[in-house]
């Protein structure tokens, strides 16, 4: 056998320091987390809320979270899979859906805290930069955007969710530099372009292009879900307007009527007892002996 110098010796493992569990899983950026959670000591127990936005392949998760030693406490959450309830059935992870999810979360939180009358936010969604004005009695609800491990490029969907929450009435410190429609050359946010993204106009344009001009078959395959619901390129903006109105009308979550299962599903293998392991060994050896009766057999 070729003599290969062992790369990872016993000494390597002895000195190896594991990173934090969530870092090993690649889920938490601790550098950002420390800076988001750190509260001024002279504010004592005042919670610092994070507006957390995470994207999965088919869902958007928006939460308002505050940190504690026992674990993070989620005050309110909104998911893209709740949007069918308000009339949005397809395209649940695009920029417009992110806007709807952010808006839903903002209205939900404000309703929970009974601030929804005071802070209506921006009812007409123009793409302009909108910040909440403090009202007379209570100051607006402040949260800090937590993007997680996303690359914050201009036009990222996470900023769509941010815009939704801002228009919903939350106070989140931000800059318009990363909204879709910001032109780096003139250093200005093109409100019209941003509004197009909020209402899914970029999707509608693509639908028109692939339908009428280039490839009608591609249109059939790509937008099959839209076609099943009977959505054409021109209906999209109207649909989003209705969804925004529906969200503002009733943002409270619906309790699921499904009963929780009495026994939790087991995700890892159950640990066997000593007798069970011995029995398994005997079985395996018997099977081996039965399978190859010609070869030499060692005693158990």
């Amino acid at each position, binding site marked *: 056998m070729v003599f290969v110098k062992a790369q990872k010796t016993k000494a390597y493992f002895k*000195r190896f320091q594991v990173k934090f569990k969530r870092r090993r899983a690649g889920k938490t950026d601790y550098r950002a*987390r*420390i800076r988001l959670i750190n*509260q*001024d*000591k*002279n504010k*004592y127990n005042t919670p610092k809320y994070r507006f957390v936005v995470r994207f999965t392949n088919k869902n958007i998760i928006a939460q308002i979270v505050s940190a504690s*030693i026992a674990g993070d406490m989620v005050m309110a959450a909104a998911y893209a899979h709740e949007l069918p309830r308000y009339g949005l059935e397809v395209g649940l992870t695009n920029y417009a859906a992110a806007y709807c999810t952010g808006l839903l979360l903002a209205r939900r939180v404000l309703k929970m805290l009974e601030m929804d009358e005071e802070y209506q936010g921006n009812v007409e969604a123009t793409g302009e930069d909108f910040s909440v004005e403090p009202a007379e009695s209570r100051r607006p609800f402040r949260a800090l955007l937590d993007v997680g491990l996303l690359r914050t490029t201009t036009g990222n969907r996470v900023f769509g969710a941010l815009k939704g929450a801002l228009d919903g009435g939350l106070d989140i410190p931000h800059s318009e530099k990363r909204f879709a429609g910001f032109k780096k050359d003139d250093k200005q946010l093109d409100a019209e372009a941003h509004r197009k993204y909020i209402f899914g106009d970029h999707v509608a344009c693509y639908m028109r292009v692939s339908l009428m001009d280039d490839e009608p078959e591609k249109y059939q395959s790509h937008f099959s879900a839209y076609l099943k619901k009977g959505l054409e390129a021109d209906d999209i903006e109207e649909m989003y307007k209705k969804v925004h109105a529906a969200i503002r009308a009733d943002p409270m979550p619906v309790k699921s009527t499904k009963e929780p299962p009495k026994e939790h599903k087991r995700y890892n293998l159950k640990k066997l007892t000593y007798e069970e392991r011995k029995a398994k060994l005997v079985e395996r050896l018997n099977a081996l002996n039965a399978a190859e009766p010609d070869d030499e057999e060692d005693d158990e």
Partner: protein
Amino acid sequence: MPAGHGVRSRTRDLFARPFRKKGYIPLTTYLRTYKIGDFVDIKVNGAVHKGMPHKFYHGRTGKVWNVTKRAIGVEVNKQVGNRIIRKRIHVRVEHVLPSRCTEEFRERKKKNDQLKAEAKSRGEKISTKRQPEGPKPGFMVEGATLETVTPIPYDVVNDLKGGY
């Protein structure tokens, strides 16, 4: 070149992070709150360079007298010459732990209050004072055998080992 006497002199091991605990510090240090009058232990965290106390204060316990945005003011006793001065220093929260020195006292206070309330409801008097451990009670020694030891007479021939 002689060794210097800078602020962090002789702290190579004192401020070093323990084995396999380098890098980011766990977040509970940032989530703890401290009120004025709490007791805290000062333990320097070498990974955070700002707001480090002088090496003298490492391992000291003091009372919180001030709370600012990112740091705690701690009042620590320091012996200077023939007197003890109460020194007031500001230390960042990463170098501070809540002290357990008053934990036993607070537990005892709670328990005593409870005992006193119970005794009051029963109408009898109790003393909640701690008593020091007294002398052990007397006991009989078990399984002892008597062995009488007498001196043996001096034997010149046997006792002189080797030459004489």
